[in-house]
């Protein structure tokens, strides 16, 4: 897949960058909040020396809605819908974490049918999210065409979602105890069509971008995040697995039916932007593998457990976590026995991953910052909440 060329071989012989240019003072520039490469309203204050980054300070809060405070006034059925607006690219997976946390507190048994459908939906969401990331990532570093390729396939997933859940972006399909409604009759047929199509296209992605020499030169050795730093900064998801930190929640602490399906946890040892890129590309193939195992084996039966109209969580603390497309999402509910959560905390993956950006960026060129931010796959509403 990789074509070793003369440029790559001589790449290591480039003279080291002068850390402090003579006569050049520090220079502060603002990237964002309205900048195409920040994928939303993220504001970075960057201190530069020449072209070398000395410090990156993220300023957050441009899309802060205080979802945690909002949830304190919503009951256990309502608060799930707000979380679709956090990480809008993995709406289903966010809902899964919240539904699971309420089910844990209520000790509800979720029917097998609902569990399997949830996993299929989660994996479709993961593919859709990674596709958007792939297109945007390539566009960030100057390749425009992949964006259209990615959205062409993503559209198929959106159609599947629209039929079953009624929405294309902020889907609300999971309720405590199961699913809101049963699957659309076309669901299995359409998913199988999508799998056949996507298997052809994913290799095309590799041909188009992954093996491209310009792309590799932009990504390799850029944004180094060592294994120790990744753990210390609380990174999760592909950002951590690119530094060979094993932390796939689906594998380590299986939920739903993840312990019954076969898939690999993707680990890369490169610790750079290219490693994080490869993790996501390979993860898409694993997601397809999971869907293939389940799509013909959706058990018959109820899609929702019988629950009371008003849910009351017993007094106590409940924590559930899932693997979203960006990493580990934790939902921490403190209940006082009422119909609303007393305190709710969302441990969002993007927030911790963003905090590692400063460490990654120091000492590298300003132009590489875009490649680093691209591979962190930041979704700003997820960070600000």
């Amino acid at each position: 897949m990789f074509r070793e060329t003369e440029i790559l071989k001589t790449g290591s012989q480039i003279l080291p960058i002068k850390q402090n240019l003579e006569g050049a003072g520090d220079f502060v520039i603002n990237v964002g909040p309205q900048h195409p490469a920040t994928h939303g309203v993220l504001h970075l204050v960057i201190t530069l020396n020449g072209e070398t980054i000395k410090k990156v300070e993220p300023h957050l809060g441009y899309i802060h809605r205080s979802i945690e405070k909002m949830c304190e006034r919503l009951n256990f059925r309502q608060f799930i819908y707000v979380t679709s607006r956090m990480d809008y690219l993995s709406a289903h997976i966010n809902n899964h974490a919240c539904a699971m946390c309420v089910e844990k507190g209520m000790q509800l048994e979720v029917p097998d049918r609902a569990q399997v459908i949830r996993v299929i939906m989660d994996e479709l969401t993961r593919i859709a999210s990674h596709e958007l990331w792939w297109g945007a990532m390539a566009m960030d570093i100057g390749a425009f065409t992949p964006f259209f390729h990615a959205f062409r396939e993503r559209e198929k997933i959106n159609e599947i979602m629209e039929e079953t859940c009624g929405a294309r972006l902020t889907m609300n399909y999971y309720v405590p105890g199961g699913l809101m409604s049963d699957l659309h009759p076309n669901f299995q047929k359409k998913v199988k069509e999508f799998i056949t199509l996507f298997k052809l296209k994913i290799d095309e992605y590799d041909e188009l971008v992954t093996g491209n020499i310009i792309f590799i030169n932009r990504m390799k050795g850029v944004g180094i995040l060592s294994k120790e730093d990744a753990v210390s900064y609380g990174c999760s998801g592909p950002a951590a697995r690119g530094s060979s930190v094993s932390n796939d929640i689906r594998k380590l602490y299986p939920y739903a039916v993840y312990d019954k399906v076969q898939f690999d946890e993707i680990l890369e040892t490169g610790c750079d932007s290219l490693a994080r890129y490869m993790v996501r590309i390979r993860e898409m193939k694993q997601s397809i593998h999971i869907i293939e195992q389940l799509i013909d084996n959706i058990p018959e039966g109820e899609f929702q457990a019988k629950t009371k109209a008003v849910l009351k969580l017993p007094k106590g603390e409940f924590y559930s976590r899932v693997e979203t497309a960006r990493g580990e999402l934790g939902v921490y509910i403190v209940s006082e026995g009422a119909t609303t959560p007393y305190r709710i905390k969302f441990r969002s993956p993007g927030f911790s991953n963003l905090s590692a950006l400063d460490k990654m960026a120091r000492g590298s060129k300003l132009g590489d910052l875009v490649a680093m931010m691209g591979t962190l796959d930041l979704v700003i509403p997820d960070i600000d909440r």
Partner: protein
Amino acid sequence: MNNEELKIKITELLPSAIFDETGEWLNIHVTPTDWLSFAIQLRNDDLLFFDYLFCLTCIDWTKPAEEKPDLTMVYHFSSTKFRHHIVVKSNLNSSQPQIETVSNIWQTANFLEREVYEMFGVNFLNHPDLRLLILPDGWEGKNPMRKNFEDPINMIKL
């Protein structure tokens, strides 16, 4: 290590620790004065090795039950090596809430503590960069996640 082994090990390190096993993981209550030295031991002990701080937050108890402490800091730890978990809690006084920072032990605490600082008004001693992170400049003094926070213009009461 399972919960029983963790309990024995932690009692050796900190005899004053109070345990609570009602939740999913072992909960440990420590006083704010013991926290920093205990945190260093949690991270550096070869058998505990809690190197992953995955959730740091604060709970405001002020409103419904008067006998409860005012604020509780909650730290969720796991170990990437042994895969065991603990939850450490520390009660703070709301008139002057302060606790030592752990951002030099777990780097992720830097941002998470800044969030708690602005949302709950907890003062983290020796924090390298304790500024507002999410809230706009000039917001100091008001803590939106506290239960007694009032904003007549922007808050809609149902």
